[in-house]
């Protein structure tokens, strides 16, 4: 099998995670890591045999063994790196959201299309089994015609400085709720109107979005940065013949509690999955399949751009106080 050489750009939290799963994909391997922070690329590359460590993207792109560039840098830098990677003939998998402006999205889409390389965005929610199950059952008519849907996604306030800077991350809507916007459009089609409110205080950002799809479905998305009870997600889809619900807080296969208050918590995933079912693994394996020409990319460039468009419309709505048509 042809070997797919992965170049990770951005050796932070998400870059390290993706590298770990790329290493498990048959016929693929991490061959290079680039990060501008001194030592960061070395620290990650050393975990993957003879992977090369660079401090510039240009060096990584010049490495002929790199066939896929996985863009794992702060969102406002996606365009620059994705376009350069495409121009260098590399396939591009980009962390979500694709970008923070539609012109950046368009530039990335144009560059990857012109280069004839595979391009997709890491809307990993589609690979989470509960969301994939919902989509499959929905398509099989499990709730009849969908009518109204709700999503909730709540987590800690980001510890990394660039996340907290709206100019770099887009804030809770563009960075977190965008997962649900992609899921909702995947299930119910294009969103045509958005009304949104966003509240912020130190260490907290909160958004409520009311959305109307072209199909007529009404949906509601809730996003929390600064959730004190820890990360969780929930959704429900109501239809003419049923209701599909999931709440990660009620679907925990493992719960560990230390006996002494204040003692170090037992590190356990509360939703453990077999390695081959892990959503991050399935995401990169799907991209490898696309690179090999076995399957189309799971998240089309147009879908990823559309999720950004809705997020930007929501932010505009929160800013102006009006509903925004897309």
């Amino acid at each position: 099998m042809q070997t797919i050489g992965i170049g990770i750009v951005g050796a932070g939290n998400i870059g390290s995670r993706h590298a770990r799963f790329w290493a498990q994909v048959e016929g693929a391997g991490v061959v290079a890591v680039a990060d501008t922070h001194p030592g960061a690329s070395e620290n990650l590359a050393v975990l993957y045999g003879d992977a090369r460590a660079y401090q510039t993207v240009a060096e990584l792109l010049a490495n002929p063994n790199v066939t896929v560039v996985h863009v794992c840098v702060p969102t406002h830098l996606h365009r620059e790196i994705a376009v350069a990677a495409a121009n260098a003939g590399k396939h591009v998998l980009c962390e979500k959201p694709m970008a923070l402006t539609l012109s950046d999205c368009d530039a990335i889409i144009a560059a990857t299309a012109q280069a004839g390389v595979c391009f997709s965005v890491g809307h990993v929610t589609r690979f989470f089994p509960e969301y994939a199950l919902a989509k499959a059952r929905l398509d099989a008519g499990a709730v009849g015609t969908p009518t109204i849907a709700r999503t909730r996604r709540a987590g800690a306030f980001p510890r990394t400085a660039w996340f907290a800077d709206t100019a770099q991350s887009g804030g809770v809507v563009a960075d977190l709720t965008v997962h649900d916007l992609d899921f909702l459009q995947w299930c119910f089609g294009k969103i045509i109107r958005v009304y949104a409110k966003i509240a912020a205080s130190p260490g907290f950002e909160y958004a409520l979005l009311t959305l109307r799809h072209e199909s007529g479905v009404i949906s509601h998305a809730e996003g929390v940065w600064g959730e004190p009870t820890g990360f969780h997600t929930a959704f429900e889809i109501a239809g003419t013949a049923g209701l599909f619900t999931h709440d990660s807080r009620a679907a925990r296969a493992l719960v560990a509690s230390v006996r002494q208050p204040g003692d170090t918590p037992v590190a356990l995933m509360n939703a453990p999955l077999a390695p081959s079912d892990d959503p991050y693994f399935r995401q990169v394996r799907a991209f490898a399949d696309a690179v090999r020409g076995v399957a189309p990319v799971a998240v089309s460039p147009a879908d990823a751009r559309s999720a950004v468009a809705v997020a930007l419309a929501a932010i505009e709505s929160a800013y102006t106080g009006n509903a925004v048509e897309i």
Partner: protein
Amino acid sequence: MLKIGILGTAHGHADSYAEEVNAHPGAELIGVWDDNAERREASASKYGTAAFDTVDALCTATDAVIVCSENVYHRTLTETAARHGKPMLCEKPLATTPTDAHAMITDCEAAGVSLFTAFPCRFSPAFVALRDAAHRGDLGEILAVRGTNRGKCPFGWFVDTKLSGGGAVMDHTVHVADLLRVLLRSEVSTVFCEADNRMFSGDFDDTGIVNLTFESGVFATIDCSWSRPAQTFPTWGDVTLGVQGTRASVEMDMLAQGATLYNEGAARIQTLGYGSGIDGGMVAAFIHAMQTGEPGDLATGTDGLRTVEIVAAAYESVRTHQPVVVKRLSGMM
């Protein structure tokens, strides 16, 4: 013994209110009236009380009345009770239009009788605890609230807009909107709403998300949809609030106190609620108000009007697809 009559039993809540009156040591259910003779007799028999042929006859015989007719008849029944000088508790929504609600308040003021709106959720121990904590400042500054009052479609006259005045937005928005007014101690300035008929065909809305922005700047959404499956859902629905304060977040699931029953003979898994009833607290407060003149936590007519104004703005927003500034009529009571 306070003599209470029920005007109209079309709304299912009449059953619960009747039961609570019957159970109260200080009051007596002396009769019911309904424009439907069959329903009138059935209700009287069910409640163990007398069926009255006319509104006037029942009003004459009572000290106070509870109005549980179809929504559109609230106004005329209120007018009649006021003419008889009888104070009343009126089922929600107080009326189907702000004009009607305002007229009811004016009539009662002119007659010197009190008018209360039936918002039993105010009497939920969970809500009372949340309200008190919020008012003590334990949550810090409240920034936003996510609310739901989802249920099964009630069908019947509820989906006949000539009698109900509207669908899910009319039926379910007002409970949570009232809780939010109490919690936030602020009035709603603008309303945005997406609503549609998507579940059950007809000229009524069955799915909706109502967005409220308060004068204080706090925002909230209310899912008022009749989105719970009729056959298989384990309860009738829910009342929830997710309150985001600068110091704490609070999740209230008002009816969460329940056990789960898997019974082989039943068509569905059932949640058997064991939480404290909320109707009893409200009926007791009404009886207490009649005896002492102290309204306690009861919602006034004006409280009812405020939520009817929100509903009217929501329906206007559904037409314009933009937020609508709430038009507020003056209300005293």
